[in-house]
């Protein structure tokens, strides 16, 4: 029993430490990318549409990406922001440039096409509005719906 307790404790500590370190690295890289201009090839793609907007890294077999796409479509319809979709599995050079470890990832950029924030995982509508300068604070979602998960 003591042996098994030690195994569980060690496994828990290793998992926590590994995930914590990965999160910290992602956070540091995301902070370092703030204010940096988008790569020239992406800037060319965005030349017609301009900023502010969102680069949206997605994958074809990713459930969360479908949710993220809905949120971004809504954001584009409401505020006219640019959304550039990039298949992270096909365009791996761009994915590497923004440290995409898993999808979805959203990169928010301003009018000057400078990075304002990088979000790993499903980004909330209200959080994106704040990053894009369309709202001053993240709103609490109302009209909650409880589902059987």
């Amino acid at each position, binding site marked *: *029993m003591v042996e098994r307790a030690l195994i*569980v404790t060690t496994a828990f500590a290793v*998992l926590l430490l590994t995930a914590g370190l990965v999160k910290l690295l992602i956070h540091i890289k995301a902070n370092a990318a703030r204010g940096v201009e988008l790569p020239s090839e992406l800037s060319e793609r965005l030349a017609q549409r301009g900023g502010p907007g969102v680069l949206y890294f997605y994958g074809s077999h990713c*459930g969360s990406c479908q949710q993220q796409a809905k*949120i971004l479509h809504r954001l584009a319809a409401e505020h006219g922001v640019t959304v550039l979709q990039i298949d992270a*599995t096909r365009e791996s050079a761009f994915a590497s440039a923004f440290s995409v470890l898993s999808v979805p990832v959203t990169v928010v950029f301003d009018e000057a096409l400078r990075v304002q924030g990088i979000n790993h995982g499903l980004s909330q*509508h*209200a959080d994106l*509005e704040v990053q894009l300068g369309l709202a001053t604070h993240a709103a609490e979602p109302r009209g909650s719906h409880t589902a059987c*998960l």
Partner: protein
Amino acid sequence: MSSHPASTEVFDVTARKFHQAASAVLLAVGFILSGRAELALLTIVGIVMLAGRFWWPADIFRQLVWRVLEPAHILPRIDRQEDHETRRVARVLGGVLILISAIVLATGGSWGWVFAAATAVLIFFDAAFDFCLLCFLAYWGSRTFRAA
């Protein structure tokens, strides 16, 4: 800013995380106790995961949150936009794997813990970091496959 709160449905993250934490802790306790307690805890977690997916009153962990912990303000309710479809699939998969573990252990196979341990790790990552380990592996598999 929009007058609409969200473009997609929002879900109670507190209840989800409590459910996941309770499942992971019970699996760990089952592993430590071994014997009958091990089988009982694996079976309970597997059934709650599987049955609660199709009939929500069977999810006793979420029921505890909704009926006791949140009304008593012990845990705050946090609603967020989430990908519940993928989690529903993962939940069924996890429940089945845990029940298979219980059956294997009941028939004397000590390797039965492999499935339950893998499920516990996936649950832990999602509960603690909102990180989908399976999605991560699928993404890198797909990226490597395309590169090759």
